[in-house]
Structures are given as structure tokens and as C-alpha cells.
């Protein structure tokens, strides 16, 4: 299932996938895979993404 909330939060911060990937220390393809719903990130990566985007885990990852 696509994670459109993550995509929207990233776009709201005016960050590209590459920029977000650099900020959380992963590859661009990993961010792309999370947004497409092809990869379930670990809680550690979810927290890192939430911190960078200024959102809570619930807002980005809870269904």
C-alpha cells in the first residue's frame, strides 16, 4: 500500500527523495520503496524520518 502521507509530508517540506534520503542516511531508492509501499522500514528509520519531517509516527505510518 502506497504511503501517500509520507510523500505529502516530504513535499510540504520541499524535500526531494534524494534530500530526505541524505538527511536520514539511506539511499534514495529506499525512500522511494517506502513511498511506493514496497518496503516496510524499521522503527528506527521511521523515527528518523518523522524527526526530519516534524511529524509523529501516527501521522506518517499508522493506518
Amino acid at each position, binding site marked *: 500500500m502506497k504511503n501517500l502521507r509520507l510523500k505529502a509530508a516530504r513535499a510540504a517540506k520541499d524535500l*526531494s*527523495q*534524494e534530500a530526505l*534520503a*541524505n538527511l536520514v*542516511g*539511506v*539511499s*534514495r*531508492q*529506499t525512500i*522511494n*520503496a517506502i513511498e511506493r509501499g514496497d*518496503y516496510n*522500514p*524499521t522503527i*528506527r*528509520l521511521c523515527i528518523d524520518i518523522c524527526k526530519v519531517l516534524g511529524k509523529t509516527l501516527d501521522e506518517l505510518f499508522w493506518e
Partner: protein
Amino acid sequence: MGAFIPVILPICIGLIFLGIAIALASLEANRYDERQKLVRGNAYAAAFHILLIYTLATHLAEIWLERPWCTPMTNISLSLYLPLGAFLLIAVGKDAYTRPKGSPRRTGVALLIAGGIMLAYAVFEWKRRGILTPEGLVDLPLHFLAGPVFLLSGLLQLWRCRRAAKEDQK
């Protein structure tokens, strides 16, 4: 002192290899992100299974033919490059070959050049000495297998880069 050398030498060599393994493991852990490590783990597993299947197939062929079907060097090349090819194709195909801060395009070009050179050398060797020994054993040059493996991986890597660039444009 000389009497202890047969005991000390293997221990020293073992410690050196252990040190190298630990250094490589820590380097590996810091280089790839979590998704890439997962993909690489699956790729290593696939490579291991291919090696097992190849070993089984070779032994069955030897039992059936009642002699080896290829030279020892060809056997070594196949058992090296079949798993390596599987690993490279899976890792490159799922964007887990180049570390997050690396350059996938540069990796692709390097693989392509290495593969091209190996394949050209393999064709030269193949024309020079043929593919069968006088005893009828298959004798593939080492680069005959390595060339296509690296070439395919390079092409796949560059194709992935192109696709990523298109995704970025969207």
C-alpha cells in the same frame, strides 16, 4: 622455539583472517542502509543456493559420464562466477549494490568497462585455443564467464540509473 612454529603459525593466520572478517563486517554494516542489507542478504542466500545446486549437478554429471565433464579451472570459474552473477544481478537489480552515498552511474560504468575488457579477452582466448581439450573436456577461459556477468550487471545498473532519473523528473 622452532617446535612451536607449526602451532603458532596457524593461530596467527587464523587471527589475521578473523581481524579482516571483523573489519569487513563493520565496514559493511556502516556502508549500506537497512533495505540494502536485506536485499544483499537475500542475494547472498540465492548465490549460496546456486553454488549448492551447481555442485550437485556437477557431481551427478560426473557420475553419469563416469569422468569429469570440464577442466578443474572451468569448474572453479563456474562455481565462482555463477553465484557471483546471481548476487550481482539481484543486488544491482534492487538498487542494493552501491552504498547510499556512492555513485550508481560510476559503478555501472566501471562494471561495464570491466565486463567489456574481460569479454574481449575471453573471445581472443576462445579463438586461440578453442573450447574443448584434446581429452574432450570443456575448457572455458576464466573471463568467458566473468565478462558477461560484469557486463550484464553494468548494463542493469545504468538502466536503473536512467529509470531513477525519469522517476525524479516525475
